[in-house]
């Protein structure tokens, strides 16, 4: 804890202060209270691209062309200028400050999608250790796809989805993987999870989890597919006994694992052997068809061997909010091919794990340090207070638990690691701005960041832009904010219907 709020005094204190063990990053982060992006340059003239995000190491700004076919990568730099004279602070910024290329240098422009394909703007995953980026292109979605073998009904189909692995340093496309007549939920990168060098892709249409490894050379290598078969040699075994299985349709491997787990769990619940069969009938056989009809929706890694899979009914397959439908969560061990745990989405036991160990659901590998410091209700008392506040106000605990469970399985890399979102440093209105990179309805009022440790002292404001007040009523505006992971630098992008996009830069002068 620094004793003074003055920047120079803090620098001197840092020379002699030993931070608490394991909390040196938390202490050094207090400098962000002194260095804030308080200066705004409105409406800079920048190329008309859709900016996606800063990579988590702050090296690149990823953007896509308006026609969704090219990838353009910039390197963030810093405005530099000199001024003569004594009192430089009062000078206004030079004219070149209004230019985009004073802050960013374009590295390259690479075409990813060909004629009828489009880059999915929402999809981007970054592998920091090798500076690889994963992008996705897809053709148009069709809802009346013919049913092919193995595909389930009720899920739309996309003719071709291609994932590209690009080395961001120079824009070289290292490898690609295509899925044909399939459906992967690309919105917000929800259907894919990256953990260290492993990728899991949830193919909804064929109900298969594809596990791939990203090698150092940049190749995408298939590791295993979980769905119909669980072990690598299952397919061989079934095929060599084809005469036995002919005519019967077996349940898929993962479904068999799930049903046998539920059976054994229900069996063990009743100690008295005479009552066991009755208990099984009520708890298991009565719901048997419902369990068989479950499909996998979303998947994430918990560590290199364990997956958290969300199961639900076909109706809620593609939608994001699933309040009415029952959903289930299963923890699956890929090595032993066993289901370890199974919970319904109203389970209070699962909720208590969610409350205590949320950071472990985010499955941050040891390689990325900054990701461990993103504020969540498991590592920050202010966030936990907010959660308990909502919990205490609610009348229906079951509804509250289900609402919290909609955030599981977690979406990879969905939050910005910027220290300005650290809840122990700043207080801000989470409806207007938050670490989650998302489009929000714009507000006229500036968004205030208030210091947490000195209550009521405003540290800086982000004003999305001068009002566009039109005579025909307020136009609908959507803002999104891109914060640099460690510099006091942010972009706010305002999109108004039928008007050009406005980009503002907020930085520390």
């Amino acid at each position, binding site marked *: 804890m620094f004793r003074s709020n003055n920047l120079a005094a803090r620098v001197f204190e840092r020379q002699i202060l030993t931070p608490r063990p394991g909390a040196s990053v938390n202490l050094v982060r207090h400098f962000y209270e002194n260095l804030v992006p308080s200066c705004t340059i409105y409406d800079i003239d920048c190329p008309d691209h859709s900016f996606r995000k800063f990579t988590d190491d702050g090296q690149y700004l990823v953007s896509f062309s308006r026609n969704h076919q090219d990838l353009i990568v910039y390197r963030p730099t810093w405005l530099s200028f000199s001024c003569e004279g004594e009192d430089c602070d009062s000078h206004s910024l030079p004219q070149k400050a209004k230019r985009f290329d004073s802050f960013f240098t374009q590295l390259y422009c690479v075409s990813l999608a060909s004629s009828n394909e489009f880059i999915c703007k929402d999809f981007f995953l970054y592998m920091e250790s090798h500076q690889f980026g994963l992008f996705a292109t897809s053709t148009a979605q069709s809802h009346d796809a013919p049913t092919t073998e193995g595909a389930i009904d009720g899920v739309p189909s996309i003719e071709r989805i291609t994932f590209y692995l690009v080395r961001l340093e120079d824009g070289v496309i290292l490898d690609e993987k295509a899925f044909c007549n399939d459906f992967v939920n690309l919105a917000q990168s929800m259907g894919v999870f990256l953990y260290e060098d492993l990728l899991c892709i949830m193919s909804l249409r064929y109900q298969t989890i594809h596990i791939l490894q990203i090698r150092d050379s940049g190749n995408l290598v298939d590791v295993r597919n979980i769905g119909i078969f669980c072990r690598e040699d299952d397919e061989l075994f079934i095929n060599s006994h084809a005469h036995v299985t002919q005519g019967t349709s077996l349940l898929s491997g993962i479904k068999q694992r799930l049903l046998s787990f539920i059976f054994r*769990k229900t069996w*063990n619940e009743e*100690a008295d052997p005479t009552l066991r069969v009755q208990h099984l009938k009520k708890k298991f056989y009565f719901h048997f068809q419902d369990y068989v009809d479950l499909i996998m929706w979303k998947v994430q890694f*918990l*560590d290199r061997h*364990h997956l958290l899979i969300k199961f639900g009914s076909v109706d809620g397959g593609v939608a994001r909010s699933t309040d009415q439908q029952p959903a289930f969560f299963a*923890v699956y061990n890929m090595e032993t091919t066993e289901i*370890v*745990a199974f919970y319904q989405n109203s389970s209070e*036991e699962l909720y208590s*794990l969610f409350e205590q*160990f949320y950071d*472990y*659901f985010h499955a941050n590998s040891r390689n990325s340090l900054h990701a461990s410091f993103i504020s969540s209700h498991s590592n920050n008392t202010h966030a936990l207070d907010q959660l308990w506040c909502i919990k205490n106000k609610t009348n229906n605990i079951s509804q509250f638990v289900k609402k919290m469970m909609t955030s599981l399985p977690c979406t990879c890399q969905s939050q910005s690691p910027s220290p300005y979102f650290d809840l122990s440093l700043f207080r801000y209105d989470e409806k207007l701005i938050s670490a989650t990179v998302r489009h929000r309805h714009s507000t006229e009022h500036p968004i205030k960041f208030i210091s947490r440790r000195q209550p009521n002292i405003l540290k800086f404001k982000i004003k999305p832009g001068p009002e566009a007040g039109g005579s025909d009523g307020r136009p609908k505006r959507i803002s999104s904010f891109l914060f640099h992971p460690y510099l006091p630098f942010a972009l706010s992008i305002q999109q108004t219907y039928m008007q050009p996009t406005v980009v503002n830069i907020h930085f520390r002068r």
Partner: protein
Amino acid sequence: MGSLLGDWPSYNPHNFSQLRPADPSAQPSKLTPVTYHPTHSRTLPPPNQVISTETRNILLRQFYQKPEEKLRPKRAASDNLTPAHGSKQLRGAFADGSN
């Protein structure tokens, strides 16, 4: 005077026996400070003990342990009375006079 390092225990009774006080007028009986050493080896770790980090993170450990916890209360109460730590001995029986 006491030794510079205080009256801390040491495993080797001959440590600190070479200490000479800075003050030449100190009495010879206080030259060698008292060293403490253990009189038994019950608290030594087993020779093949290796301490390493648990590979599974705490969340996964919870997922594995919860079903086991649910099974445990099913056992009869008398099972819990047998001491699990049979190797532990009562303290009073082996109290040594040495300090």
